């Protein structure tokens, strides 16, 4: 219920307050989506760590669903970032945007997570290996960020500036609402997908019991 309310807030507030030009408005989508994607990966890694440490029953599935959502949001980050780049600088992609490059690396990493997960037969081995890989992901985030920052010195001269806008108070409020909306959306999707997967699993158990 919170989700439609939050989304309505975005679409009602944003046209009222943002006055930098229409293309800047995508910022209200792009950055919250990016932050939500990071949050999903972090949550997935947390569940993975819990799975390895205490082995609660559903932790592996929760980790998988969180990372699935993270990849979806990550893809959206790349798409919205690309659209923003096109609108602001006239190019679809720029290597000088550290956030976009970092997301590309992470997107590849977590896409490989799915390749890994679906090439191992279901069972405790798959759960363990997926969990270890998810933990590698969160460790990779800061190391990659450092690497990409250092790489700028020799990759290309920085032609475009990827900067965060200086925000007026009203824009900051819109940004916060947008961020809250994205996080709520992610949480709702997470709950939805998790419930669906759990129903799938219990259905499978029932089917096997009937045979």
């Amino acid at each position, binding site marked *: 219920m919170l989700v439609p309310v939050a989304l309505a807030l975005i679409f009602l507030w944003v046209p009222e307050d943002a006055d930098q030009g229409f293309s800047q408005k995508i910022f209200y989508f792009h950055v919250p989506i990016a932050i939500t994607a990071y949050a999903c990966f972090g949550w997935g890694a947390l569940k993975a760590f819990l799975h390895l440490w205490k082995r609660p029953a559903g932790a592996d599935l929760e980790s998988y669903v969180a990372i699935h959502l993270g990849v979806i949001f990550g893809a959206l980050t790349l798409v919205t970032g690309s659209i923003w780049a096109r609108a602001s600088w006239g190019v679809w992609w720029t290597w000088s945007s550290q956030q976009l490059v970092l997301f590309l690396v*992470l997107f590849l990493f977590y896409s*490989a997570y799915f*390749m890994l997960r679906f090439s191992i*037969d279901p069972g405790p081995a798959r759960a363990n*290996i997926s969990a270890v890989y998810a933990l590698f992901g969160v460790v990779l985030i800061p*190391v990659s960020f450092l690497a990409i920052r250092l790489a700028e010195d*020799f990759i290309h001269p920085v032609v475009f500036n990827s900067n965060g806008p200086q925000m007026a108070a009203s824009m900051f409020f819109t940004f916060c609402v947008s961020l809250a909306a994205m996080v709520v959306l992610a949480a709702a999707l997470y709950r939805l997908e998790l419930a669906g997967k759990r129903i799938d699993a219990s259905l499978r158990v029932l089917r096997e019991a009937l045979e």
Partner: protein
Amino acid sequence: MSYFTDVATLARKDLLLELRARDTVPAMLLFVVAALVVFHFALPEASASLAAYGLLWVALIFTAILGLVRAFAAERDQGLLDALVLAPCDRSAIWLAKALAMLAFLVLAELVALPAFAIFFSGIDGMTIAGVALADLGICVVGTLLAAMAAASRARELLLPLLFLPLAVPIVVGGVGASVVENGGRYLGLLAVYDAIFAIICWASFEYVVTE
């Protein structure tokens, strides 16, 4: 000290097997030289000589992948991984021994690759060698764990490059930076940080990769 005895025994086993079979290291040597030849044709006349250093690192990463794909091949094909896990040693000793063996193979391949690069393209300086040394540690440490993951899957050889390349991005950045940039010390620092962090988490998590 029995931990290090276990590591030494397992590493010796891998090195002896390679010495007798002689399949992985010659393949890596030939691959890296062939790759360097291809890169000569891949670099147009006007491209900077610095581009060659980038391609050196590409060649090294893919040669390492070639070796890593075969890391757990014997254990997987003959079902030996279960036997190793049942042995009364710390599971991380298996990882460390395999990583050290892989490091030996990679260093052997580089002993040929770096002079070949120096002859085909431009010279190798001390920073590049230091970068290669640090990068080798990172590649072997992470690659061995990922090879164990790939060995447990159905996709095997297909999976390892997919898993490894995103994790190899900081290594490539560190290595190329050390070769190319004037005072490349901070790139060596990046490589050292990468090695330290990933060595610790690989050491800690290998147990969970091979057991249930």
